[in-house]
């Protein structure tokens, strides 16, 4: 492939993907750190580079509602938000997934008020992890660019028909410029052809009622179907990852291991903290430490089998959570422990890090590694740690 390179921020990369995906309707409302996604797309439209309609709505609730309307009509539809905006959308998130609409959303992660904070953690996307949306987590700008295009293919697949969100940390990825291989338009057209929207519902000649009342006689079965479609997304994403690799030469899969095969301790997590973790693992490996990482590129559905395969040889999993499930643990952690709960396998510890944008520096990850390494899996008393929080001044 011809080597073209560009220097793009994460938000620019998303907009470039939206353009290449030939999205037909964009509906969004500005919020830091998402706003420039909208601005780039608006410029593409006004410069005639993208033939799409933009609905400049008056709120996020309406942003996703309008996106649902557009998708119900059969148009390829995109939205983007963050943090408070995502919370305002909460009701509509379930509406979109329940109606099986292949809307794609870009979500630069940002922490939730109160207190006011515009920096990045995963509290927003994880708070809606059970809203029936596929959640993909990118850890650098290239991934944001690639995964946004992949998300349309995944969502629109007839075996799936579910909305997707591409999560990537605000500022750390949304606003940091990196060197990117832009996806060539002709190859994107091959990978993601124009949709044949079988999900479109408004046909005057063949009318039917959408979102009718469904009583307990049918509701559990409807939900089960939705759940099964969600589960299928693991395999379909694996398939899409292979096709993407064949066309574009970059590998994607629901879970990604790094130096994991013989690792005693595996650092597990989502998002950009995993890039830092990989750097730390390289350093530790040079010192002979048996450590690796396992990174979830897909968190919903949870790629259980794939995750188990990558972690089965480890002694202990150090699960990083850039979020807190108040009164319990981090929100990634319970899914990880579930994978191994009824089986012989690694134990797990949970590390709450980077809340409200506190930088997750290599030293934090070194500390996590030391705690995990020194833990005897048979004698775990405490399993949730706050390694970068000054807990001692509060306790």
């Amino acid at each position, binding site marked *: 492939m011809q080597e073209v390179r560009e220097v793009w921020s994460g938000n620019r990369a998303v907009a470039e993907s939206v353009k290449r995906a030939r999205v*037909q*309707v964009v*509906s969004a409302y500005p919020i830091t750190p998402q706003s420039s996604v909208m601005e780039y797309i608006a410029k593409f439209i006004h410069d005639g580079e993208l033939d*799409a*309609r933009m*609905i*400049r*709505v*008056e*709120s996020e*609730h*309406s*942003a996703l*509602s*309008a*996106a*649902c*309307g*557009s*998708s*119900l*009509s*059969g*148009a390829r*539809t995109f939205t983007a938000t963050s943090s408070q905006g995502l919370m305002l959308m909460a*009701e*509509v998130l379930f*509406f979109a997934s329940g109606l099986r609409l292949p809307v794609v959303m870009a979500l630069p992660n940002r922490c939730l008020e109160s207190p006011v904070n515009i920096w990045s953690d995963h509290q927003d996307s994880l708070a809606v992890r059970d809203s029936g949306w596929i959640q993909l987590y990118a850890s650098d700008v290239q991934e944001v660019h690639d995964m946004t295009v992949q998300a349309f293919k995944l969502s629109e697949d007839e075996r799936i028909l579910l909305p997707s969100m591409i999560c990537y940390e605000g500022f750390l990825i949304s606003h940091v410029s990196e060197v990117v291989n832009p996806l060539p338009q002709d190859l994107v057209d091959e990978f993601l052809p124009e949709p044949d929207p079988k999900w479109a*519902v*408004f*046909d*005057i000649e063949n*009318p*039917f*009622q*959408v*979102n*009718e*009342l469904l009583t307990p006689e049918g509701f559990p079965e409807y939900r089960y179907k939705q759940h099964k479609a969600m589960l299928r997304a693991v395999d379909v994403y694996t398939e899409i990852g292979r096709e993407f690799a064949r066309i574009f030469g970059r590998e994607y899969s629901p879970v990604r291991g790094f130096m994991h095969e013989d690792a005693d301790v595996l650092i597990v997590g989502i998002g950009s903290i995993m890039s830092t973790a990989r750097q730390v693992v390289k350093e530790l490996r040079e010192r002979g430490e048996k450590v690796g990482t396992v990174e979830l590129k897909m968190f919903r559905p949870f790629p259980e089998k794939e995750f188990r395969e990558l972690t089965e040889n480890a002694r202990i999993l150090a699960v990083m959570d850039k979020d807190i499930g108040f009164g319990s643990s981090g929100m990634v952690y319970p899914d990880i422990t579930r994978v191994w709960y009824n089986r012989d396998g690694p134990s797990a510890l949970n590390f709450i890090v980077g809340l409200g944008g506190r930088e997750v520096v290599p030293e934090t990850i070194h500390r996590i590694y030391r705690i995990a390494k020194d833990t005897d899996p048979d004698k775990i008393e405490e399993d949730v740690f706050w390694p970068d929080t000054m807990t001692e001044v509060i306790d």
Partner: protein
Amino acid sequence: MKLKEVTDEEFLHHGGMACPGCGAYLGLRLALKALGKNTILFNVTGCIATTLIMGVTKIPMIHTLFENGPAIASGVDYGLSALEKREGINLLVYAGDGGTADIGLQSLSGAIERGHDFVYICYDNESYMNTGGQRSGTTPFGAITTTTPAGKKIKGETRPIHLRKDMVEIVAAHGTPYVASASIAYPLDFMEKVKKAAETRGPAYIHLFATCPTGWGADPAKTIEIARLAVQTGMINLFEIVNGERRITVRVRKRKPVEEYLKLQRRFKPLLEDREALKSLQDYVDRKCELLGVDMEDRK
């Protein structure tokens, strides 16, 4: 519009689950007759959305969330346009007063301001009926609702009548090209307005007064009579505002005292016993009617 111009075709099958004498249900039936089959219905959560189940509509319909009907319609407007399937299709949002004046006001305002091409009809039964008859932003002064009960100390809604949300004026203030108030008791006037709304390029809004016998404590057989009295007493005024020009469409000859309208509804029982409050309501209605020019020139 003349009676003979009204189609015999029905766009709702039998089996809708509305109460006997439901004004809002009748309103939808009439609106669809005026719009015809090339219509997509956005049925906003509320009584009517809940009654139209099991394939009762003969046209494409979506039951929307409580506050997002206009936003979904905006998306359909642009989505169908993008696919070049928009021509000749009416988008009708049908919502209650709660879904319009209260929780859905923002999405309605946004969709109007963006200039989407849709018809919005608010059926006003002056309360949240789907959830059991609570007060809304259009509940009139004195009315008993389940959240403004007739207690020993406070009886009914206390918010003065002039502070009730006036949706027609709110929508007109947006510069909406077509805005009208209508009543189920004047079906030809209403249907003509619906037709004009559909012919309007851009947003159009109709505020439809719709009797709710269940919520108002009224005889279902008197649905039309009550709605007619609302107009004939001047409680409700029928007019349209076309590109800013206001025109009364139904004038009233020998306007009746408001009591005649109130006394057919149990929700106004305490109000009817309060002479002072009644007088101030009558004064308000007189002033409003005079301002609007509702009363017919006296031909005595």
